[in-house]
Structure formats: C-alpha cells, structure tokens
C-alpha cells in the first residue's frame, strides 16, 4: 500500500500540464516567466504577443524561482516541503526535485552549477549543487532572508533580511558575510542595476527604497515609494527603477540617477514581482490578488494589457530563450 501511495504521489508530482505550443524563437528572443504560488504553475509569456503560450506545472506551492541560462532550467523553492523543484524550460517538464530541508525561499543560480538558497526560518543561505542537491556550505545571515540576488560574475550575493531590516552582503567565493547593511523596515525584494554599481532594495514596512552603492556598501539615497513596496526592477539602460506598491496597487517609476519619482502607473491588486524587457519597451507585473499580469508600456508609462494567469502570481523573470 505504501508503494501504491508512493507511486500515486510520484505520478502527481511529475504530472506536467502543457497548454498551447511554444512558437519557434531565435536565440536572442526574450521570454517572460511568471510563477503562481497557489496553483504551482510557471506561465510562459511571449512578449511579441503578450499572451501565455505555455504553463509548466510545479509540485506544491513554489514561492520564488531563478533561471540558469547555462542549462535552460528553472529552479523554484518549495518552502512547505523544504525542496527545490527543477524544470527544463525547453521540454516544459519537471526534471528533478532537490531535498534541501528547512523553508527555502529566495534563490539564485551561478554558472558553475551552484544554487544560493535562503532559508526563511533558519536565517541562513545554503550553497547547493544544482544537480545533486548536496549542500556545500551554510552561511548565517539576518532574520528571515527573503529574496536574494547574485552578481553576474558570481562573486557576491545580496540578501534582503526582512526581519533584521538589513541586507547581507556575501562573498560568494569565501562563503562569508562581508557586511550587514542596515536598510529600511522589512526589506523583501532587491535588484541590481545593469552596471551593478547600485542595488535597489524595497522596504515593505517603511515604504522606501534603499539605494546602495555597491563599492562603498553605503546607502546612497532612500526615496519614498507608495504603500508596501514588494517588488523592484531596474531597466537595462540603468535609467529607471520600477517598484511595485502592493497596498497602492501601482508601479512607481523612479529616476535611477536622481532617485526622484517620474510616474506612477495603476496596475492590478496587490502587485508583487516586476520584470523589464531588455530593450526597455515593456514591463510585466504579477498582480497577486487579481491573478493577472499587467503589461506596461514604459514609453507612455501606461498599462496596455492585463493577462489572466493562474492563482497567486508573485514573481516575474525575463530570460532569453533556452539554448
């Protein structure tokens, strides 16, 4: 009986829903991925048509994800079960589940195959092998690490320690915390500029953005946002910072040089994750309460489309097509 139950669990776990087909893309084409926690689905949006062209089923309730451009895989944290689910973006299939334990939340992947995974309740970041799930190292950080971001060369990780009101700066070669930078209250999401000179940190409770100079590791500026900033992105030309204001149901566009607000765009209810296309033409916002994705025109600073998606969208990433 145990075997049978196990088999059923396995079948349920590996069930993959695939809706529609993916149009052939050139290798430079970008794709938008939106992760819905409640329904456990990664939606694939083609920015040429702004429609969902595929839905990849994850087990459980995935909270956050990252994409490896080296392997074309997406890694999603499952805080309930202490696992990381890995899907192949080309075949849109679940390929493996890594058991890491604890409550994994924020995640980033390095080109050498190592995952940096925050543990929300154990207050640490684990370095995990992306294939075997083996843990190489555990680094203690401040309370309740939320999202984390890795530099392009993989030398440094920044972690938003939500309950510690600080950002941990980790030397990703030595696996050591270089500094805990005090920021606003309840930092949750963060984003690096393309030149990696600035780190923008969204502070949920204080309704501010902490802009960190990544060479001095000092705060450059703390512009006000609207209520409960939950997501942040920087345009690829480093001109603008986009912040999703969860309680205000809007996106603030902040000038990345002067750190003053340029515009506010109304979106769906309780927006969270936000991502910008490389050419800067459009942004995509996960509206958690509305179960939709807002498409923003960043020239006109208006919402041009709202796409219905599976329940609980919280995180959006833009990635070039899998190799």
């Amino acid at each position: 009986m145990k075997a049978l139950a196990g088999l059923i669990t396995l079948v349920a776990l590996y069930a993959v829903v695939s809706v529609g087909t993916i149009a052939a893309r050139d290798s430079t084409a970008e794709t938008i991925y939106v992760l819905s926690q409640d329904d456990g689905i990664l939606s694939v949006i083609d920015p040429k048509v702004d429609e969902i062209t595929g839905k990849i089923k994850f087990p459980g309730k995935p909270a956050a994800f990252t994409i490896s451009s080296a392997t074309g895989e997406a890694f999603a944290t499952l805080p309930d079960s202490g696992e990381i689910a890995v899907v192949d973006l080309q075949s849109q299939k679940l390929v493996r589940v890594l058991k890491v334990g604890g409550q994994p939340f924020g995640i980033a992947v390095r080109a050498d195959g190592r995952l940096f995974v925050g543990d929300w309740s154990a207050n640490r970041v684990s370095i995990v092998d992306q294939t075997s799930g083996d843990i190489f190292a555990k680094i203690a950080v401040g309370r309740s690490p939320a999202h984390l971001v890795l530099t392009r060369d993989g030398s440094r990780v920044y972690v938003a320690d939500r309950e510690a009101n600080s950002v941990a700066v980790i030397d990703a070669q030595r696996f050591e915390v270089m500094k805990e930078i005090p920021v606003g209250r309840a930092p949750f999401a963060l984003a690096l500029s393309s030149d990696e000179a600035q780190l923008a940190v969204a502070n949920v409770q204080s309704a501010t953005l902490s802009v960190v100079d990544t060479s001095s590791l000092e705060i450059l500026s703390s512009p006000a946002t609207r209520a409960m900033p939950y997501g942040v992105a920087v345009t690829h030309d480093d001109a603008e910072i986009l912040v999703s204001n969860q309680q205000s149901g809007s996106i603030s566009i902040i000038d990345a040089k002067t750190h003053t607000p340029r515009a506010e765009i109304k979106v769906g209810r309780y927006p969270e994750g936000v991502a910008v296309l490389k050419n800067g033409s459009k942004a995509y916002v996960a509206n958690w309460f509305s179960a939709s994705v807002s498409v923003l025109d960043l020239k006109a600073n208006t919402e041009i489309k709202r796409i219905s998606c599976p329940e609980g969208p919280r995180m959006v990433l833009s990635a070039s097509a899998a190799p």
Partner: protein
Amino acid sequence: MPIKFRSLLAFAILSMGAHAALAHGPTPQKVEEKIAISAPPATVWQLIKDFGSIGTWHPSVASAKSEGGNASGATRTFTLKSGGGELVESLDDYQEKDMSYGYRLATENDEAFPASFYSDTIQVVPASGGSEVVWGSRFYRADTTNEPPENKNDAAAIKATEDFIKAGLAGIKAKAEGKG
C-alpha cells in the same frame, strides 16, 4: 481484487489530501467579501471613511481609539469582544475619490486574531440599487513555520478573516440601511 485496489486507491488519495492540508506552508492567503447595500455610496462612505471609526460600525469590536486621522501612518487600536488584547493597525493608502483605503496590521497579536502580517483594502463602489462594499485581505497564518498548531494554521487564519470581514460588512449594511 478490483474492489480492494479501488479502496486502496481511495485511501491513498485521501491520505495525500490530508497531508497536503496539514503541510500547507507560508503561502500568503486571500479573502475577499462583498455586500450589497440599499443606500447611496456617499452615505456608506460617510459611515466608514474615518479610519478610526471601526468601533462605531463593526459589531465584533469592543472598543477602539485612533491617532493621526486619515493620514498615511495613522493608527487605530482596538479590542475584540472575543478578547485577546489589542490589535494595532496602520493606514497606508487613503483614496477619498475612490472611496477606498488600505491598511495593515502594525503589531502582531495572534491571541486576539490568528493571522500575521495582514494587509486589507476596503472600498465603497456604486452599484445598481445603491452601493457595494468590497473588503479584501492578504495575510499569513499566525504560525508560519512548517508545523503550525491547529489554531494557528492557514485554515484558522482564513476562517477568522472571513468571519471578521463578514461581520464588519453586515454591520456597515445595518447602519447604512438604518437598521443598526
């Protein structure tokens, strides 16, 4: 054999369901309730527009005080008739022209209310025959670890939130329709 197999299958599926319910993790939950009211939107808004007024229209509230009016950062502190001490909420987003405001739990107190870090939005919307009040909440269960006790799990948080919002909406309706 087919019968036995079927019952085994049923048992396995049931076990999985129970497991899934128990192992629910720190996923934000949402509740949204609406109520139709036979009164003009301006009348309904007048009743609830002051963030600190909750004690005058919510039947589950025992006592309430407030500070800061309707400015961002204003707080209201109230106790429930069910006890458990004070709840402190702070105002985030006030939209007079949309007849709407958003607020959040400022100080956790799961003895009074079994949800943590909730943020709510309440809005009066014009509707045929009068108004509609829409009240939504995003929240986490009181115990966000992977093994919450029954009184602090997702189900407890959802039930408490639904009950509180429904009672509040019924209170607004009764007052606005002159029956409160």
